C-alpha cells in the first residue's frame, strides 16, 4: 500500500504507459523534424554504446604485439625487466587480488554494520540520515586525496599497529616480516575505506526494501533484535548484499591512485601482508608516463586488458545479481 507513493514505482508505471503510445507526429510540416530528432537521439545512444566496444578493440589491438610475444605465459610469469624486455603479470595480479580481498574483508562487515545502523530503528532519525550521508560522502573524495592522507596520516598512525601485529603474530605467515611503512595491508585498508560507501549504500537500500511484516513477525515470535537481523533480515537481503559486495570488488580491483601511493610498489610476491607489493593499476600508472619501447607499451596494454576483462566480468556479474534481486522484488 505504502508503495504507491514510491516515486521509482510510479516511474516504472509511467514508462510502461509511454511505451504503448507513439507520440511522434505523422503529418504536418514538422514530420521531418521529428524524424531527424529520432535519428539524432538514436545515433547518440549508439555512439555512447560504441565507446565501450571501441575501448575494448583499441586496448586489445595495442596489447596484441605483447600477446603474440608472451602469450598466456604472461599471466604466470614473474619477470618484469624493461631492459631485457621480459614481462610477466603474476606479481601484479597477485597484488590486485590480495589488496581487493583485504578491502572486502573489512568493508563487507563494516558496510553491513553501517547499513543496519542507518536502516534499523536503533538510532534516532537525526543521527541516521547524517550518518548515511557522511558515509556516502567518502565516495566523493578524489582518490588522490585519500592517497595523500594515506601517505602522511594513515601510514604513520598505522605503523605501531603493524609493528604490534609483527611482534605478536609473527608465527602467522601473513605477519611474518618486519613492517617498513608502506605495505599491502595498508593499501588494503585504504581500499576498504574507498569501497565502503558502495557497500553501505546498496546494503542499506536492500535492507530498507525488506517488507516490515517480516521483521514484525520475527519480533512477535520473541526474537531479539539481533536474532531478527541474523535470521530474517540478512538472509532475506542476502542476494542484494552479495550484489553490493561484488560491485565493491569491481571498484577495488580497478582503484589506482590511493593504492599506488601507499603500497610501496615492489615487484615481489610475498605471503606477508606487511611487505610492500604492487597492483596492475599501480604499475600502469607508474610506468606508462615513461614507457617508450613499443613492447613495453604493449606489455602495459596487456596488463590493462587483463584488468579490463577482470573488472568487466565482476561488474557484469554485479549488474546481473542486482537486476535479479530487483526483478524478484525482495520477498514479494
Amino acid at each position, binding site marked *: 500500500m505504502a508503495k504507491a507513493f514510491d516515486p521509482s514505482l510510479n516511474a516504472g508505471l509511467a514508462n510502461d504507459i509511454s511505451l504503448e503510445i507513439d507520440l511522434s507526429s505523422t503529418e504536418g510540416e*514538422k514530420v521531418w523534424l521529428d524524424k531527424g530528432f*529520432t535519428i539524432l537521439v538514436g545515433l547518440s545512444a549508439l555512439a555512447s554504446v560504441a565507446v565501450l566496444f571501441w575501448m575494448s578493440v583499441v586496448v586489445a589491438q595495442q596489447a596484441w604485439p605483447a600477446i603474440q610475444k608472451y602469450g598466456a605465459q604472461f599471466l604466470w610469469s614473474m619477470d618484469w625487466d624493461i631492459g631485457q624486455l621480459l614481462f610477466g603479470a603474476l606479481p601484479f595480479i597477485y597484488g590486485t587480488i590480495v589488496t581487493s580481498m583485504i578491502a572486502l574483508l573489512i568493508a563487507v562487515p563494516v558496510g553491513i554494520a553501517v547499513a543496519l545502523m542507518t536502516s534499523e530503528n536503533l538510532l534516532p532519525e537525526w543521527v541516521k540520515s547524517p550518518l548515511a550521508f557522511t558515509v556516502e560522502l567518502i565516495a566523493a573524495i578524489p582518490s*588522490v586525496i585519500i592517497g*595523500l592522507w594515506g601517505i*602522511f596520516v594513515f601510514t604513520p598512525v598505522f605503523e605501531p599497529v603493524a609493528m604490534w601485529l609483527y611482534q605478536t603474530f609473527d608465527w602467522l605467515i601473513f605477519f611474518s616480516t618486519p613492517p617498513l611503512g608502506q605495505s599491502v595491508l595498508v593499501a588494503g585498508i585504504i581500499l576498504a575505506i574507498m569501497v565502503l560507501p558502495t557497500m553501505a549504500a546498496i546494503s542499506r537500500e536492500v535492507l530498507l526494501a525488506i517488507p516490515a511484516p517480516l521483521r514484525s513477525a520475527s519480533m512477535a515470535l520473541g526474537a531479539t533484535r539481533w536474532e531478527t537481523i541474523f535470521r530474517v533480515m540478512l538472509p532475506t537481503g542476502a542476494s542484494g548484499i552479495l550484489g553490493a559486495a561484488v560491485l565493491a570488488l569491481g571498484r577495488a580491483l580497478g582503484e589506482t591512485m590511493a593504492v599506488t601511493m601507499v603500497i610501496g610498489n615492489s615487484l615481489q610476491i610475498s605471503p606477508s601482508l606487511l611487505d610492500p607489493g604492487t597492483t596492475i593499476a599501480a604499475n*600502469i600508472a607508474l610506468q606508462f608516463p615513461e614507457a617508450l619501447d613499443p613492447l613495453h607499451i604493449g606489455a602495459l596494454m596487456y596488463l*590493462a586488458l587483463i*584488468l579490463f576483462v577482470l573488472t*568487466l566480468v565482476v561488474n557484469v556479474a554485479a549488474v546481473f545479481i542486482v537486476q535479479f534481486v530487483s526483478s524478484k522484488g525482495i520477498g514479494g
Partner: protein
Amino acid sequence: MTAYNYDANRDEADLLDSAEDIDLEVPLPLVRRFFDRGMTVLAIVLAIAAIIPLFSVLKEIIQRGLSGLSIHVFTSLPAAVGEANVISGFGNAIQGTMVMVSIASLVSIPLGILTAIFLAEFGQAGWLTRSIRFILTVLSGVPSIVVGVFAYALIVLNTIAGYRGFSALAGSVALMVIMLPIVALSTEEALKLVPVPQRLGSSALGGNRFDTTFRIVLPSALAGITTGCLLAVSRAAGETAPLIFTALFSQDWMTSIMDPVASLPVLIYNYASSPFAEQNAMAWTASLVLLVLVLVTNILSRIATRKRAGR
C-alpha cells in the same frame, strides 16, 4: 517488587492483589541478552569507525592546507624544485583542470542527455533499451585507469594536427569517457520522474516529439539533469589515474590543447611523493582547493536531488 511466594491457602482476592507485584518482564536468558547488547555495541563501534577516515581527511586537509592558502596559489606558477619561501602557486593546474573538464563536458553532456532521451522517451522497453542501459552501466564501472589507457592509445600514440604525444586533448577524451555514462544514466532517471500525462497533454495539444521533449519533458527534469551533470563534473575534476599519462604535467601555463598540461589531481600526486617539504605542503593546499571544489558541487547536487524526490 517482592518475590512471589506460592501459597496454596490464599484465596482468590489475595491472588489478584499480589498479581500486581509479579515482575511481568521475564528476563531473557543471559546468553541471548549479552548477544543482543554485544552486537548493538559492535555495530555502533563499526559505524563510528566507518566515518572516522572522512573526518580525519577533512581535519588534516584544513589543518595542513589552510596555512598555504593565499591569492598566489591561484595566480602563480609552481616554484622551481627546492626553492622554499618564494611566491609559488598552482594557477596553471587549476587552469588545466578547468579546461579539460570543460572540453569533456562540452561533448559528454549533450551526448549523454541525447542518449538518455533515447532511453527514456524513445526506448521501446525492448532488448535494445535494456542492452544500451546495461552497456552504459558496465562502462561506468570500467576502471578510470583503463579509460586512460584508451585515451593514450587513441590520442597520445597517434599524430593529430601534426603533433604526437601527451596533450590536454588526450586528458579531455579520457574525462569525456568517464563522464558520459554518469550523465546518461542520471539524466534517464530524471526523465523517468516526469509524469506521462504531461507528455500526453503536450501531444494532445498538437506538440510533436521534438516539441514535447524540449518544451515539456526537459524543463520539468532540469533540476535532476543538472544534478547528474554536476556529479559527473565533480567526479571528472578529481580523476587522476587517466590524466597522469595522457595530459601528463606541465610547469607552465597552458597555451594549446595539443600540449601537455598540469591539473590539480596530478599536481597533488606528483607533490605528495616529492622529497621536498614545501611541495608536500603545496599538495595539501591543492587538496584543500580540489576538495572544496568537489565537495561543494557534490553536496549541492545531492541536496537538490533530495528536495526534488521529496524526502
